[in-house]
Structures are given as structure tokens and as C-alpha cells.
């Protein structure tokens, strides 16, 4: 599979907060747990990010075949939100500072 990552279109919202909290620079990563159903992971990506099936499928297969997929590059605040939403579905998701 291609090594490129398809990133979601994150809307920029006007928010209050410190500059470091608002600046992009955080990656939302989903890691592979072999127990999750592929259809379930795809559904969660569609629900949490509002993606269509094709985009959700690309990321689901990346998780499944390569062990992880970067789902979003965004602000710290948004990354926390996405990680929380993914973990509500018991997916293995973390946020990591962009290298």
C-alpha cells in the first residue's frame, strides 16, 4: 500500500486559549488492536471524523496492515477531543507531538 497519509480536513475554529494550545502540531494516531472488527473501526472513523466510507477504509486498512495510522494533524485541544472520542469506542488512540 502507498506510504502517503490522507489527512482529514480540519476546520479552523476561533477559540480562546494559549497560542501553544491552538497551534497545529499534534498528531492523532490510531494503533492496531487485532481484536477490533475491521467494519467496526471503519464505522468509528466515519462517525468521529465525518469521513466517507472510502477515506475511512483507507485509514482502517493502514491501521490493520501497518500497525497504525495518523488520523489527524491538529491543535492540542482538537487532538484531545478526537482521542477521547476514539477511546469511547475502545479504539487504541493516542495524541503525539509532531516531530
Amino acid at each position, binding site marked *: 500500500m502507498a506510504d502517503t497519509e490522507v489527512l482529514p480536513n480540519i476546520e479552523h475554529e476561533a477559540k480562546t486559549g494559549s497560542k501553544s494550545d491552538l497551534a497545529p502540531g499534534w498528531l492523532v494516531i490510531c494503533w492496531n488492536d487485532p*481484536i477490533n472488527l475491521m467494519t467496526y473501526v471503519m464505522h468509528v472513523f466515519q462517525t468521529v471524523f465525518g469521513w466517507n466510507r472510502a477515506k475511512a477504509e483507507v485509514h482502517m486498512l493502514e491501521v490493520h496492515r501497518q500497525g497504525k495510522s495518523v488520523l489527524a494533524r491538529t491543535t492540542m485541544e482538537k487532538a484531545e477531543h478526537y482521542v477521547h472520542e476514539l477511546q469511547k469506542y475502545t479504539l487504541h488512540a493516542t495524541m503525539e507531538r509532531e516531530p
Partner: protein
Amino acid sequence: MKLLRVGQDGSVFQLGHGEQQLLFETLKHYPLVPAAHHRLSQADQGPHAEENQRLLEASLAEVRQANRRQVLALLNEPQRWRATKSGFELELTPLQIEWLLQVLNDVRVGSWLALGEPASGAAPAVTEQNAKYFFALESCGLFQSGLLTALGISESPHWAGD
């Protein structure tokens, strides 16, 4: 678990008596994943990492509490189940399907953890003590597939071999 129809307000499923019992027994395991299983970050970066982790766990605990209430309602409110000749009909709104998917996956992942996290395709070492987790894991997958079908999510032919 068979999808009978999808309406404007929700989806109606048919469950046999045995399937209903299996669903009840499965849901009784919830919540199963340990709270500390979820980590906000693998690298624990940032000056507030510990506090953020604590907030994440508190927030997930609230979600679990709300889900637990929904589970108890499903188990203890007989009016939710319409008796039929061959079992029961259960109507679920899209929101109820979402929380049920979350609950079932918690039990599925929690069972997998309890079985020692066997690799994909590897048979877990089932013993008298952990057999209940093996059954819970399998039944969660069965019910999740039924719910996902109602949402129009199905496997693609080109996933074959994965």
C-alpha cells in the same frame, strides 16, 4: 440477531430466546477494560501530561457510567422487548446502536485483554477460569456485526486475506 427493518426512528432486530440470553450475559460483563488501559499519549509529552491523563480517565469514567445505566435499562425494562413466536423484537434508535456498539467493544477488548491478548488468528489458551471471556469475545463480535449491518456497514471483498 437478524435485522428485520430499518425505519425513520430506528432499526428493529429479531433475537431468539437463546440470543437474548446470550446478549444479557455478555452485557453483564460491562465495563471490562481497566480504566488505566487508555493512555492519552505514548510519549507522555507536555507539562500537563499527568493532569490531562487524569482528566481523560475521569471523562471516560463518566461515559462508562452513562453506558452502564443504559445497559441496566436494556436488561431490566421488559417493555423494550416485544415477544414474538420465535423470540423477541428489539427496536434501537441510531444513538442506542452507537452506545451498544461502544459497550460491546469494551467487553470484546476487555475479554481479549483477559485472555492474554492473543495475536490475530492465534487461538487463546482457554481454561475453566477464562472460558467466560472467550464466549464473551465471540458473542460481542456476533452482535456487533448485526448492529453494523443495520448501519449499512459491511465487509469489502478486497479485504479478503486480511
